[in-house]
C-alpha cells in the first residue's frame, strides 16, 4: 500500500497543470471562480481548446479520439481541471452520447457524429425525463410510431438541459406499450430543427434558464437515426447512466470550493467581516468538512486504484455519488452563510462587479440553490440508496 502517485503519474499531473495554466482563458477562469453562468460560446470555446490538445474526450476509446489513460490519470486530470477552475465541457456530448455512439453506433453514425460531437460542432441535449417519468424513468410515454422509413414522435420531454442551444437530441421513446415497461423503449437521435418540435424554457430557482420542456407534435425522424435495436433503448440508457466511476464524487470540485472557503476565511477575518467567535465557528466547520472530504477523496482513490486492475471495491464505489453530492452541497451552504445579507442581491449579468473578487458574494446563494439539483438529477440520492440497499446489502 502506498498513497503517493508514481513518478509517471506526478509527471503527468505536472503536464496537465502546465497545459491548463497556459491554455485556459483568463476570462473563463474568472467566471468559474465567481460562479458566473457560462454561455454556450464559453463552453464551446474551451472544449475546442481541449479537443485541439486531444483532451476533450479522453475516456472514449482511443480509435475515436480518446486517451489510453489509467484510472489514476483520469482522476488526476479531473482534479487538475477543477483546481485550475476549468469548465467541464458539455456532459451530454462528452459523457453521454459520445460513449453511446462509440459502443452502439453504426459505422455510418460514428462517422457522421463522433468528431463533430467531440468538437461541439453539434451541441447535444438529452431527452429522457417526462412529466410522469422521473425517478421511474421507464414509465415514459412519448411515442415513436413507425411510418415507412420514419418514426413519428408525439409527446413531451421535460428538464431538458440546454435544449434551447441544442442542435441535436438523443432520447428515449416508446415504440411498444404491450410488454414490460422497460421493453418497447427505443433510443433515437433527432435534429432539433425538425418541424413539430417546440422548446419551452423553464426558469430555475437560481434565476437561470438551463432547463426546458420539449414538445413533439408529429415529429418525423428517419429510421436510420436509431441507436441499437428498436425496443432495446433501455439497455443503451443503462449503459449511459452507469459507466463512469472515476469522477463521480467530483472531489476536484469540492477541493476547489474548499480552497475558496479557506481564502474567504482568511480574507473575511482580515477585513473585519468575521468576529473572533465567527472565525472559530467557521474554522471548526471547515475542519469537519475537510475530514469528510479527505475521507471521501481516499474512498474515490480506492475505487480508482481498484479500477486499474479491473474493478472491485464496489461498496466504496457505491457511496461516491451520494456522499459526493452531499459534500458539494455542504460547501455551497457554507459559502452562502459567509455571504450573509450582503449576498441577498442576485448577480447582475449586465454589469461586472466593481471589485472582481466580490463576485462570489452575490453568486453564493444562487449557486447553493442550483446545487440542490445534484442530489436529484442522474438518479436521485433516494434511488441510489434503494440500489445500494438492494445490490450491496441484499435488503
Amino acid at each position, binding site marked *: 500500500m502506498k498513497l503517493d502517485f508514481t513518478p509517471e503519474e506526478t509527471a503527468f499531473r505536472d503536464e496537465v497543470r502546465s497545459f491548463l495554466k497556459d491554455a485556459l482563458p483568463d476570462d473563463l477562469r474568472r467566471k468559474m471562480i465567481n460562479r458566473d453562468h457560462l454561455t454556450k460560446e464559453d463552453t464551446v470555446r474551451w472544449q475546442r481548446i481541449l479537443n485541439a490538445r486531444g483532451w476533450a474526450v479522453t475516456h472514449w476509446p482511443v480509435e475515436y479520439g480518446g486517451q489510453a489513460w489509467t484510472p489514476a490519470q483520469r482522476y488526476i486530470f479531473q482534479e487538475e481541471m477543477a483546481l485550475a477552475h476549468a469548465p467541464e465541457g458539455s456532459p451530454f456530448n462528452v459523457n453521454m452520447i459520445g460513449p453511446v455512439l462509440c459502443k452502439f453506433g453504426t459505422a455510418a453514425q460514428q462517422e457522421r457524429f463522433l468528431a463533430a460531437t467531440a468538437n461541439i460542432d453539434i451541441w447535444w441535449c438529452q431527452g429522457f425525463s417526462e412529466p410522469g417519468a422521473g425517478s421511474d424513468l421507464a*414509465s415514459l410515454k412519448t411515442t415513436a410510431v413507425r411510418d415507412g422509413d420514419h418514426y413519428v414522435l408525439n409527446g413531451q420531454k421535460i428538464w431538458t438541459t440546454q435544449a434551447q442551444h441544442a442542435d441535436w437530441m438523443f432520447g428515449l421513446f416508446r415504440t411498444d406499450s404491450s410488454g414490460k415497461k422497460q421493453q418497447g423503449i427505443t433510443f433515437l437521435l433527432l435534429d432539433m430543427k425538425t418541424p413539430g418540435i417546440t422548446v419551452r424554457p423553464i426558469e430555475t430557482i437560481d434565476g437561470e434558464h438551463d432547463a426546458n420542456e420539449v414538445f413533439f407534435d408529429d415529429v418525423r425522424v428517419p429510421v436510420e437515426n436509431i441507436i441499437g435495436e428498436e425496443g432495446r433503448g433501455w439497455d443503451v440508457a443503462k449503459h449511459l447512466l452507469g459507466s463512469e466511476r472515476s469522477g463521480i464524487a467530483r472531489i476536484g470540485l469540492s477541493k476547489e470550493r474548499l480552497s475558496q472557503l479557506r481564502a474567504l476565511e482568511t480574507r473575511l477575518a482580515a477585513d473585519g467581516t468575521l468576529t473572533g467567535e465567527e472565525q472559530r465557528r467557521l474554522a471548526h466547520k471547515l475542519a469537519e468538512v475537510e475530514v469528510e472530504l479527505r475521507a471521501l477523496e481516499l474512498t474515490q482513490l480506492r475505487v480508482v486504484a481498484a479500477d486499474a486492475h479491473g474493478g472491485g471495491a464496489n461498496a466504496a464505489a457505491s457511496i461516491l455519488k451520494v456522499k459526493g453530492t452531499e459534500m458539494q452541497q455542504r460547501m455551497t451552504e457554507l459559502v452562502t452563510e459567509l455571504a450573509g445579507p450582503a449576498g*441577498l442581491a442576485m448577480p447582475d449579468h449586465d454589469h461586472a462587479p466593481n471589485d472582481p473578487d466580490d463576485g462570489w458574494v452575490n453568486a453564493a446563494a444562487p449557486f447553493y440553490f442550483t446545487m*440542490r439539483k445534484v442530489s436529484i438529477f442522474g438518479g436521485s440520492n433516494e434511488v441510489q440508496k434503494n440500489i445500494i440497499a438492494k445490490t450491496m446489502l441484499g435488503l
Partner: protein
Amino acid sequence: MDFDLNDEQKMLQETVTRFVAETYDFQKREHALKTPEGWSREAYAGLAEMGLLALPFAEEEGGFGGGGVEMMIVMEALGRGLMVEPYFATVVLAGGVLRHGASAEQRADIVPGIVAGEHILALAHSEAGLPRHTLMARATASSTDDGWTLDGRKIAVIHGQSADTFVVSAMTEAGLSLFLVDAAADGVTVEGKRGYDGVPVATVAFAGVNVAKEALIGSPGQGEDILSRVFEEATAALVAESVGAMVETFDVTVDYLKTRQQFGIAIGSFQALQHRAVEMLMQLELSRSMSILAALSLDIDADQRSRNISAAKAQIGKSGRIIGQEAVQMHGAIGITAEYKVGHAFKRLTAIDALLGDRDWHLARLVEKRGVYPVAA
C-alpha cells in the same frame, strides 16, 4: 399559561389569512415579481385597507396598538403567501425605529402616510466590510449649522429602490445616530437590485447629503439603543414569517407526496420519505413554539427577551433549512424550478436565516449569555 388567541386575534388571523389566500396566489406573486418595482402596489393597498399597516403603531398616531402576538399573526400569514411587499421594511423595521425612537412630531408627520400605504420607508444600516449583523456603521453624519451632512454607502437595504424615505444610521461624535433622509435628496444614489428571494434590495450611497436638524431621530448617539430594540422586534417578526413559509412548504410537500406517482404508487407510500416528512412536521412544530415564545417576549426584561429571541431565531434557522432542503429534494426536479412555489419558499427561508443574524450569530449570543435559561443565582 395560555396559548389561545383571543377573539380579536382570531378574527385578525382569519382576515389576513383569507386575504393572502384569496388575493395573493402564486400567479399573482409571480406577476408582481415581474413588474419593474418587483412588488404589487395593489396588494400593499389591500394590506392598508385591512388596517394591517396601522397594526403596531399607537392609537394616537392612527395605529391599532397591536403587540407581539398580533404581529406574529400577520407575519405568519404574509409568510404563507411569500409576500414581497414592503411590510417588513416599512412597518416593522423603519416603523420600529419611529415607534422606539422618533419624536411625537416626527411620528405625527410620517405614520399616517405609512398607515395609508402611501409612504414607503426603508432602513439603510448594513455596510460592506463590517461584521454581518452589527450595530456598527462607518457612514458619518457631520453636524452643520442648520443640520447634518451624511456620507456613506449602505448595502442590503430592503426595498430601498421604492423607498420614499430612508432611515439611515451614521456615526456622529456622540456615536451611532439615526436620520430620516428623503430619497430624492441631493447626493442620494439608489442602485436597485433583486434579492434572490424576490424581495427588492438596494445599495444606497449618501454623498454629502444635507438634512435638517429635525431629521435626527432621538438624540445623537441613541442609535444603538433604538436599533437593538427594533432588531429584536423585527427578529420576532421574521421568525413568525418563517413559520408561515414553513407551513406552506410543508403542506405543499405533503400534498405532493400524496399525489405524485412513481413506480405505480404515490411517493408518499415510501417509508423513507414518510419518516423525513415527519421530521419536517416536528421541525415546524418546534419552530411554531419558538415563534410564540418570541412574540410573548417583546415586553419582558431585556436580558431574557434577547435570550428568547435569539433562541427562536436559532431554531428557525435550523428548521427552515431542513424543511426547505427536504421539500426541494422530495419534489425532485420541479422543486428547483422558478415556476413552482416550493423553490421560492426555500429561497425565502434561506434569506430569513441570513437576515438580522443567522443561526450561528444567535447561538454565539446565547453562548455569551450562558444559554437560553437564566442561570440560577
